[in-house]
């Protein structure tokens, strides 16, 4: 096969995975939230309602694409694409197994975060272009909280990078063959989990779309598949964040005490299972916690998470140095 064809096929595979994820995750969210609220969730389309989101996608595709009169037409049109493309880009560096990945980047971890960091621009653009106070507020909240929490998010994975000595996602997974980093790096994981939830605009940090206050925020003027793209990227981002978490803190495709050769054939399945467990926890949090206030969110970020992550980087650095001078000196 020509190398160009392989590249095209890989990109198509990423799009396919993203779309499939979106459909599955929306169904999962409805079911999980339903059962948490002692409801049944969707039940009518197909057995136990499994076809519900497929039908919803068909509905979104066939709806009229309304463009309100006063919107900033160009930006209104670009914004969903600007949210969707980085979300798709972020799939490129995720290692599903030792051989299953789209690319093997030396800077994989940084690449994923760089891709995710472009998304708030799209939200801001959507909020501005909608020519609607609520949308603008939603977009600005999204941008504000993502800018604020990018710092602790990046700082929280830094100790792991220091221990491994590489930004390559495969190296990070390989370094966890003995012990998952979640145990020695528990404080880093806690910071990562909180900052990750904020980055995803997930409840309890979903001020940017808070239905009761902002009428879905930046997405409220969008209809049909433009809305679909905004929504799809959001679900895809929770997959990406969970995948980064699994890779960095939960040993990627590996299971402790099982040799890597045994797991090789089922590695992608293990990885996907772990990622979906992570997403289940996010939905659990979403179903049980109330929303915090925006000033509380900012206080938590700047006054607690950033100093805490800096302190943890210092501690990790000291431990590594002592280890290098002492027991690991040989």
């Amino acid at each position, binding site marked *: 096969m020509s190398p160009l064809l392989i590249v095209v096929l890989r990109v198509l595979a990423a799009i396919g995975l993203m779309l499939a994820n979106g459909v599955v995750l929306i169904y999962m969210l409805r079911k999980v939230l339903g059962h948490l609220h002692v409801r049944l969730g969707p039940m009518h389309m197909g057995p136990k309602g499994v076809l519900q989101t497929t039908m919803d996608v068909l509905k979104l595709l066939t709806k009229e694409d309304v463009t309100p009169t006063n919107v*900033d037409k160009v*930006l209104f049109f670009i914004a969903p694409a600007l949210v969707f493309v980085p979300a798709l880009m972020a799939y490129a560096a995720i290692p599903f197994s030792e051989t299953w990945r789209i690319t093997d*980047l*030396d*800077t994989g971890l*940084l*690449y994923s*975060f*760089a*891709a995710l*960091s*472009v998304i*708030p*621009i799209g939200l*801001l*653009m959507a909020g*501005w272009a909608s*020519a609607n106070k609520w949308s*603008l507020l939603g977009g*600005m909240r999204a*941008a*504000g909280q993502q*800018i604020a929490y*990018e710092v602790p998010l990046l700082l929280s994975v830094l100790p792991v990078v220091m221990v491994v*000595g*590489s*930004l390559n996602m495969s190296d990070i997974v390989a370094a966890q063959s003995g012990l998952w980093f979640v145990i020695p790096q528990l404080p880093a994981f806690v910071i990562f989990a909180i900052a990750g939830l904020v980055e995803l605009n997930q409840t309890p940090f979903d001020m940017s779309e808070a239905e009761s206050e902002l009428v879905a925020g930046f997405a409220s003027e969008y209809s049909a598949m433009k809305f679909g793209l905004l929504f799809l990227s959001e679900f895809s981002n929770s997959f990406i964040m969970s995948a980064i978490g699994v890779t960095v803190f939960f040993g990627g495709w590996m299971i402790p005490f099982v040799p890597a050769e045994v797991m090789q054939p089922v590695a992608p399945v293990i990885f996907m299972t772990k990622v979906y467990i992570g997403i289940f926890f996010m939905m659990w949090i979403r179903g049980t916690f109330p929303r915090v206030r925006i000033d509380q969110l900012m206080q938590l970020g700047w006054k607690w998470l950033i100093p805490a992550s800096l302190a943890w980087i210092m501690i990790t650095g000291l431990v590594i140095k002592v280890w290098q001078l002492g027991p690991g000196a040989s």
Partner: protein
Amino acid sequence: MGETVNGVAFAILAFASIGGAVGVLASRNVVHAGFWLLEAMVAVAGLYLLLSAEFLALVQLLVYAGAVSVLLLFVVMLTLRRREDAVRPLDWSLSGAVLALLFGSMIYLGIANFDIPVAEMPSTVPDIAALGEILFALDGGWVLPFEIASLVLLVALVGAVWWSKEDEK
């Protein structure tokens, strides 16, 4: 084959970055200007990528596109009282023309009098670990400039906090 692909990619990215810069100046809507700036920054990240400077490209994307331009847009949107204020008239006054002339002649003199350094691409691209070692080498490294830069940023940060405190009274 590789040469042509690189050439085409360079042409697209160069056009995009210069076009973005022109867009910043030419658009009368300040918010649009902000988004054009973002486009120029992303295109420059692409140029870095074309030079195999992967790390630099990602940092450019993360810091300049992901943070600086968002901050800029944020401030612009926050300070606009009304949506219509975003559109500004073009300034045709004499002072503007003088300023443009001065700036243009400065750039022209700069290009005319100094040779633009041209460097060959190394045959193998150093990886990130090598970059880190060069940056933080104990002798001849860039630790001191790095620390000075971070100190300057810290001073700016403290200054901003102090400034906003004064405002509150």
